């Protein structure tokens, strides 16, 4: 066996039941050279011992929310948990509810979506997501810090996962995590030196979720940092998948109230 084989390098991750909160599937305009269909994404997940992943559809991200959701609906792979693309209008909320969502990915600042998370615009949508504990993903570039705080204050039951936080923003992130227990973040870009270890030592592992950022980034990077972090085994297991399973398990998708 090669000393660089996945089994040699990452074999221990086979026992971690890794769940990935940060993936996308389907064709992409600006990232066409890296995009993957569901079959290719599943293959790459297997290469890195990722058992299941929450995935949004690039078509919903880049083009049209409803078209993306339709494409996501036909994938129907047990290992992929759909992160639907919601819009804040009444009709879209009803369509979303009919899908009995476990997870959504918000892109309010995307010009093709173009809405704001303020209650006067998206109050009904956020209220629905909060009531049903839908795992709500949003990338840092897709939401202003103050808007994020407004959502957390107005919808404290909403399990919100901030994606792609980067490694330079602990002075923003940490106070918010301490103030809002419903806020979580993923480790795909949390890559500073001993940063993950530092966070777990100071604040515990419960608000940190494994994310790869597939298919843009290699999953090796985030998995390598997690695998080499000097943290307790139970903390590593929680980050690798336990925390996301807890959030997914708490989701109670249902009809609009």
């Amino acid at each position, binding site marked *: 066996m090669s*000393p660089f084989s996945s089994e040699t390098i990452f074999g221990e991750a086979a026992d971690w039941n890794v769940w990935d909160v940060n993936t996308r599937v389907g064709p992409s305009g600006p990232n066409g050279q890296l995009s993957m269909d569901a079959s290719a994404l599943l293959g790459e997940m297997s290469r890195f011992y990722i058992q299941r992943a929450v995935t949004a559809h690039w078509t919903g991200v880049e083009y049209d929310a409803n078209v993306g959701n339709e494409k996501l609906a036909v994938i129907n792979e047990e290992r992929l948990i759909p992160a639907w693309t919601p819009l804040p209008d009444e009709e879209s909320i009803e369509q979303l509810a009919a899908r009995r969502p476990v997870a959504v990915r918000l892109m309010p600042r995307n010009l093709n979506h173009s809405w704001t998370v303020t209650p006067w615009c998206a109050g009904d949508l956020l209220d629905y997501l909060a009531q049903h504990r839908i795992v709500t993903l949003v990338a840092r570039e897709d939401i202003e810090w103050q808007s994020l705080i407004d959502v957390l204050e107005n919808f404290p039951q909403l399990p919100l996962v901030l994606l792609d936080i980067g490694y330079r923003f602990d002075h923003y992130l940490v106070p918010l995590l301490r103030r809002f227990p419903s806020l979580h973040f993923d480790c795909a870009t949390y890559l*500073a*030196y001993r940063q993950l*270890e*530092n966070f777990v030592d100071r604040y515990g592992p419960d608000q940190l979720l494994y994310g790869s950022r597939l298919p843009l980034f*290699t999953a*090796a990077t985030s998995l390598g*940092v997690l695998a*080499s972090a000097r943290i307790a085994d139970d903390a590593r297991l929680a980050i690798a998948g336990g925390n996301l399973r807890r959030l997914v398990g708490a989701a109670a998708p249902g009809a609009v109230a």
Partner: protein
Amino acid sequence: MMRSPIPVMDAHGHLRLHVRFPYKTEPDQMLEVMDALNIEALAVTASLACWNDAPNGNIEVDEVLRKHGNRFRGYITVNPHVQGEALRELERWSHFHNPPLIKLHPSAHQCPANSPKYDAIWDYANQTGAVVLVHTWDSHAMCNPLMFPAIAKAHPQANILLGHSGVTWRGYEQAQEAATAAPNIYLELSGSQRNRTMLERCVNRLGAERIVYGSDMPALDPAGTLADVFTAKISDDDKEEILRYNFLRLLGES
């Protein structure tokens, strides 16, 4: 715990980084991480020297080399703005390594890499066969990778490491184009944007011999880039060249 199968030579490190949330960044603590990952040696520049005070930063490097000379190599970091200082620093610390290791940070010093202010430094590097690590970034006005073919051709005895290889997908494409244009340009891999398949593309276009592993610790976690190299779809021989032997050859230690 993930660990390199071979001892790694790391071309890009810093001493101390007192920004954001520094955590166990002293050299003795970095050695814990290096030992765990099987990083044999780390070539360092002082962060103080890159951003603010080159002479006092170089003193920090000297102190670490005196204490841990077998585990660290020292870059001499120079500021192009202070007239005469760069050559004085290069002479003062010439005992750090032979050939000299020089660090330039054009964006931190806000001086374009092709500015005449660097001419004496490039001439020194050419005369001494120095290894010059330069911070680069995608399309950046100070350190676009595409600035370096002209510099490299004018100074063929200097070996230029494009630090971070331009960082982004487009930055990596610029770095590959630069390395294609001049044989004394190398890609250094540290960076936070680890695009899937990019390393394979670089190896296919340039050959593994033009690529060196760097971590950028203690800014970035060394495990991220290591894992990218470990699992890339390239040969084991190529991985060993990137992780160890290419930098050893540039150092003259192979």
